[in-house]
């Protein structure tokens, strides 16, 4: 980081100070929602909940793109991985996620060619290195990650690589928030907005929260102090009574976002209705490859024959309610019993950033102190 690192003592004192301000600002029970898996994890890792007054509840929304990727998508990826000429390139996050009958990790153990990549460009490079294989990159993620996938598609197109495809299912955050506020019964007094999504999108796509719904929101960074500051800013905004979209993460987030990233996203993808695991269909909440890049769209050039409908959710799994902040993970009867990070049942447990996985890993609901 460009700044000198703060000493432990400085961090502790700043945190205490922010916590005192927060305590003073909380006059009634309040619920703030974060909608970024990285925030979910950061809140647990920094132990922030311990510093907050009991009337202030932090709940997690659908902020983990791996978790909300539907089982059908995993099933498609698994079926592609079983085709002998296919090499699946995926972010590591996706490998353990169960579909309705298998996972990519299980297929890899059974001999499928599944590679973990760190960047979509690594997948393009694999296509160059293995001309006899068809490389299918699993393009999932929110607005932070989708431009990287789009850039890989453009790169492969320009290079004329005949064997690079993507199985594309990027998702958009603002429509999901709108869906939550529109009718799911979610009660939220304010949002902590995902800092790295906003680094790409800017603030404008989230303006409707304040204007149409009267719910304030603050873009937050990912250090413990960032999050405490953002919470304080949200509470101050609530106290002032005029909902606004604030930005605590100004060192990275500009009001206009990253225009170049937005441009390439627009160039490659078009908005489409999309299914979210555990929630269902949300209008214009996903992205699909445009006609002009259809040649690189696995779903278009290698369509899979339809298979019998998959089971929507396991019996008793309440992920849908967890994802919408309606219940806490520990209120689900499967949490920590049938459903654990080693053997996840529901969407929120499948990725390390899922709400249930984070609650489980960092001890909420099973901390024996």
């Amino acid at each position, binding site marked *: 980081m460009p700044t000198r690192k703060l000493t432990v003592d400085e961090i502790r004192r700043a945190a205490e100070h922010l916590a005192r301000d927060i305590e003073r600002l909380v006059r009634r029970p309040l619920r703030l929602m974060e909608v*970024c898996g990285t925030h979910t994890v950061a809140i647990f890792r920094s132990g922030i909940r311990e510093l907050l007054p009991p009337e202030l509840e932090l709940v997690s929304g659908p902020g983990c793109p791996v978790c909300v990727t539907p089982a059908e998508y995993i099933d498609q990826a698994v079926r592609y991985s079983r085709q002998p000429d296919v090499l699946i390139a995926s972010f590591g996050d996706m490998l353990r996620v169960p579909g309705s009958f298998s996972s990519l990790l299980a297929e890899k153990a059974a001999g499928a060619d599944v590679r973990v990549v760190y960047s979509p460009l690594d997948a393009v490079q694999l296509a160059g290195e293995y001309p006899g294989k068809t490389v299918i990159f699993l393009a999932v993620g929110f607005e932070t990650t989708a431009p990287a996938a789009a850039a890989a598609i453009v790169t492969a197109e320009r290079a004329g690589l005949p064997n690079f495809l993507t199985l594309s299912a990027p998702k958009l955050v603002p429509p999901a928030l709108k869906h939550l506020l529109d009718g799911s019964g979610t009660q939220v007094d304010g949002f902590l907005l995902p800092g790295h999504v906003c680094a790409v999108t800017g603030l404008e796509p989230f303006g409707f929260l304040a204007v149409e719904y009267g719910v304030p929101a603050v873009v937050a960074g990912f250090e413990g102090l960032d999050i405490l500051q953002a919470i304080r800013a949200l509470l101050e905004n609530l106290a002032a009574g005029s909902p606004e979209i604030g930005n605590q993460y100004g060192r990275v987030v500009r009001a206009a976002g990253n225009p170049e990233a937005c441009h390439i996203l627009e160039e490659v993808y078009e908005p489409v209705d999309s299914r979210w695991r555990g929630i269902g269909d949300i209008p214009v909440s996903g992205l699909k490859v445009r006609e002009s890049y259809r040649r690189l769209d696995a779903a278009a050039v290698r369509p899979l024959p339809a298979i019998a409908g998959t089971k929507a959710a396991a019996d008793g799994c309440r992920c849908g309610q967890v994802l919408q902040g309606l219940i806490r993970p520990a209120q689900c009867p499967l949490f920590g019993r049938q459903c654990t990070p080693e053997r996840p049942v529901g969407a929120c447990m499948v990725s390390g950033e899922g709400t249930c996985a984070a609650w489980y890993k960092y001890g909420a609901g099973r901390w024996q102190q």
Partner: protein
Amino acid sequence: MCVAVPAMMVEREDFMATVDIDGVRRQVSLMLLPEARVGDYVLIHAGFAIQTIDEEEALQTLQLFKELEAYADTEADG
């Protein structure tokens, strides 16, 4: 899925750059941030630079903490 890391840009060739994160170096693409210059701090996600980091803003954050400290000091003294 939105982990991103701050890094300093140390070299640039066309749309690829070498960035340094506490001594660790890697190649990243500048396709999403073509205006980045050597010496800039940039945010890296999935092999791409996705935004520049505003040092002024970062310093202001530091300044805030100093104020908080001063405040805590007066409280402790009081």
